[in-house]
């Protein structure tokens, strides 16, 4: 009787990513991407954003479908609560980016994931955004992410997956480091 090895499958095509790495190292111009979203005001604090295309690998790329996001403030802000708040989208972005990273790293390290779930919390003193206290920043006082991971791995291996995911996460970088933002009116 033979015991066949069960292939690890987290659904991430790591070979393609590694192939892309090698190709892009030789053609760095192709690595220059521009992600895009458009945003239209609806009413009050409600707006609707769409994502349908981006620029990368030297050309405009279309998404399979157009993604739509409603953003609004909650009723305690005297708003209509027609969508998640913009800062909650940031928490979503962080959680999703770190989770995708965990899956990719786990695939590369041949660790089978069974479940991964994160709770992302951003503490905020709203005296900042309300202009009550100029010493208080508008953004988060701090963000805490808590991961629950069930996988074929030791506790240290799981911690290492989560640590490595942060190291290579775009949104983690966006949130922990400064980024130039230019806003113009056309």
């Amino acid at each position, binding site marked *: 009787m033979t015991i066949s090895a069960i292939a690890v499958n987290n659904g991430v095509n790591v070979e393609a990513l590694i192939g892309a790495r090698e190709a892009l190292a030789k053609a760095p111009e192709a690595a220059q991407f521009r992600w895009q979203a458009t945003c239209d005001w609806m009413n009050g604090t409600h707006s609707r954003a769409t994502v349908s295309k981006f620029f990368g690998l030297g050309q405009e790329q279309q998404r399979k479908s157009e993604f739509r996001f409603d953003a609004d403030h909650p009723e305690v802000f005297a708003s209509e609560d027609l969508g998640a708040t913009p800062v909650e989208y940031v928490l979503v972005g962080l959680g999703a980016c770190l989770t995708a990273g965990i899956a990719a790293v786990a695939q590369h390290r041949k660790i089978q994931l069974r479940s991964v779930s994160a709770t992302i919390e951003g503490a905020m003193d709203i005296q900042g955004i309300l202009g009550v206290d100029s010493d208080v920043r508008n953004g988060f*006082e*701090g963000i805490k992410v808590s991961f629950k991971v069930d996988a074929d791995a030791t506790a240290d291996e799981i*911690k*290492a997956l989560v*640590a490595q995911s*942060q*190291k290579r996460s775009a949104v983690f970088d966006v949130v*922990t*480091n*400064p980024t130039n933002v230019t806003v113009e009116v056309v």
Partner: protein
Amino acid sequence: MRKIDVIIIGAGHAGLAMSRCLSLRSIDHVVIERGDIANSWRTERRDSLRLLTPNWQRRLPGFAYEGDDPNGFATMPETIAFLTRYARLIAAPVETRTRVTSVRRADTGYLVATTRGDWHCRALVLASGACNIASVPRLPEKLPAAIQTLTPMDYRNPGELKHGGVLVVGAAATGIQLANEIHRSGRPVTLAVGEHIRAPRSYRGRDIQWWMDAAGVLDQRFDEIDDIERARRVPSFQLVGSLARTTVDLNALRDIGVQFTGRVVGLSGGKIWCSGSLPNQCAMSDLKLGRLLDTFDRWATDNGRDAEFDPPHRLAPTLVDDNPPLSIDLAKRNIRTIVWATGYRVDLSWLHVPVLDRKGRVRHDGGIVDAPGMYLMGMPFLRRRKSALIDGAADDARELSDHLASYLAVLPAAAVQPKIERFREWLQAEPAATSADAELSNPVS
């Protein structure tokens, strides 16, 4: 124009090791050195520095440490004396106080122009060091003029710094050593911490370098590593060579009152801005340390040697404050000095041969440079994890001189006459070797 088969640029430990290997093969060569032997150790190091590696690990081709303090850590004067004596023992043909001004390709070799005349050589060894220029991150604004800035190249001791707060940027070996001695001198230190490799001085009763050597970690080869580019950029272990054999990690620095921030990412409005990734950097460092100690433990068990050592143990996790500061208000913290312990880069501005990649690094395959008859020594993980250590030079020099010898053998018509001329000059010029010859324990190595 003088002609010679091989020129080695740099008379540090790497250049001298290569010189020894070439001499053993009777390959005619000269070592060109811009200062005196061991120049970098003489002119670019701080007063308190000791080697991170113990004396027993101070091995070069034909030389083993035979003193009475094998577990000690050499000071700078001891290191300089050792290299100077080694050069004399191996009768290395060194041209000191001669600076290379340019290297260009020539027919069957290279034209090496120096401040004392030009040479033509058939093969060339770059051994001018990995730490020529201190890397300092570019800041978008100028720092306030009253703030003194230093790099490890110009820092000598804490007494030279103004009284008041000091920001040390970078927490690899140099950063933690400076944070430790500067804070203990009564100047409160804030340490900006990015990627770092935590390591205890001792583990289970042996020095960590003993484990690194015995368990084969230092001998890991460049062609066995998954991502060699990343491995070559790994920061140095947070080690100190000291009489007390202390471990100076972030927890030890916290205990004496050093404060921490994340990696420096910007400067504006009189504030240095720092990354919010400090908790992750510390978590990653702790995990890496755990894996390293696991490697040592596995080696001990696999080799049936557990009984020789104290039981396995793990260090307490690196403590991180709940909300480390994201900015350093230079005025409020009374920061009078900033020390950039942010690494080094190579200066090959005199090398006019197209061997650099788009990031200015030499293109090479385990030290065999992408140009005919050109070799590289003394870089991190050049051929093995130990390549940048003094102890790493011997194996690299042996293997690369093998390759170099084969290269010379297939070149057209070797210059026999100049070799005889040079032998005659040597007979007339060389003083007799001293009784310290005993240290050359094995001439065939």
